[in-house]
């Protein structure tokens, strides 16, 4: 079993948490009920799941620019993921993570991160070093 995954240098602080994984994409505007902290788009593979304090692992970003402000707003109410791991982030997600001081990394050397990590895995995300460590 892998002990760590190498990725591109990212944004935000080092954090530890439990993974919530889906082979799906992400937009705070399109997919979330941000008041209650759950995925609210019926077609999303994480529909109904809480994203509070988890390490989200998803494929890529989709849609609009609103997520940049929304990550900051979600973090201010402490109803936000601890970190988001993408195969490929887009610019908006990175910009939002920078303002929200949320950990975010992407571009994993070993392939599809939504297959390399499983829901329930305990992880340490290290954006400055460009790595994610398995702790279980």
């Amino acid at each position, binding site marked *: 079993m892998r002990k760590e995954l190498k990725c591109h240098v990212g944004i935000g602080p080092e954090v530890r948490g439990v993974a919530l994984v889906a082979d799906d994409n992400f937009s705070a505007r399109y997919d979330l009920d941000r008041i209650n902290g759950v995925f609210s788009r019926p077609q999303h593979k994480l529909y109904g799941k809480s994203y509070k304090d988890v390490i989200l692992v998803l494929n890529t970003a989709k849609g609009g620019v609103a997520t940049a402000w929304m990550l900051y707003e979600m973090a201010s109410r402490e109803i936000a993921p601890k970190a988001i791991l993408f195969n490929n982030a887009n*610019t908006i997600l990175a910009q939002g993570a920078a303002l929200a001081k949320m950990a975010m990394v992407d571009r994993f050397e070993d392939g599809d991160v939504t297959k390399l990590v499983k829901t329930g895995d305990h992880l340490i995300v290290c954006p400055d070093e460009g790595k994610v460590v398995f702790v279980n």
Partner: protein
Amino acid sequence: MHLNNEENAMLAGDFGPAVKWALEHQLQVGRMFDAKDMVAVSQSHMMADPESLGEAGVAFTEKLAETNTRVCIPMITDPRGVDLEYYKPIGQTESMAVLERRFIAACKKMGITMTNTCINYQTIMPPVFGDHVAFGDTGVVIYSNSVCGARSNFEGGPSALAAGLTGRTPRYGLHLDSNRRSTKRYQVAEEPNDLMDWGLLGATIGRMAGSYWEVPVIEGIEKVPSSDQLKHFGAAMASYGSVPLFHIVGITPECNKLEDVGGLSLGVKKITDEAIRNLKEPFTAVGDPVDVVVFAAPQLSIIEMSKLAELCNGRERAAKTDVIVCTSAQVYADAVSMGYVAKIETFGGQVLVGTCFYQQYAREIGESNGWKRLLSNSAKIVNILGGYGYQPSLATMEACIASAEKGIIVK
């Protein structure tokens, strides 16, 4: 990243704390995307509605404004979330309006021009070919990149604000020639005509491309599309695929020939009728009662307002079906003088100014008005609103008005 003397002074705080924050923010983002340096931008356009800002985002902006720092390049805004002349009747609260007023005051204090539009490329100052800009709103960015030949990444509100304060942005993504080459090649079998069909085609390509880092090049479009057609095409492509740039062979300015964007070596994927039908199918509900018909996303041009007014003329909406139309203040003034607004209002429609439906607390106004089944001709808006508790459906502008008249969705 390499910083010049002026940028190092910004980072050191010589231009004040707001500019220092802005450059620090840009450095973080630039590092993630391997920017080597900064590039000067001529304009900034900020998306920032109060629903996405929340109390935290408004307070953050107010804090920057309190430093008495002003933006150093022309900076304009995306649609607002509250039409301050008409918000209580659609179920928006005073606290939403207060948040909106606070944000507008902070922006004005920083010298930001409140244009409140996502069609600035049709109404304000379109960027020119090769122009580096820092634009927000995905529809604005994809149109500016693809149709105007300007250079912008998707700049979220915080980054657009940072660009306004520093006059530059990290040089990565679509500011680099290498990232503007095509990566996927599509062949269109039949050229769309109606705006909804252009949106569906854009949505289909966006879904197939599927990433910010893909650049579709499209063959098979012979007749030069109108600005409104490309507006719906691009907005839907960006919405479904997070795609910020496309090329159409022989139409868009960077792609006179396929080889201009490196498309010759790419395998061709055909856009089939079946793929388009599959995308539309979840948004088909003929025969269902319709609660609200929405024309927005993007805001309507004066040409769309003209067509809508003609369709409304002499007709009346069903009592249980509301009609909302969103346009910019710039278009609204012309639409009033031309009598278009009067015709839409006589039909029973409500024209909102400087807002866009999905950006104005869509969940709350839906619950307040009992709006569940929504109908629109915008492929973008039906993609967004599923997550806000709506059952969105898609139809042409003509079918939308006919449905509003009957109170049920018609073909």
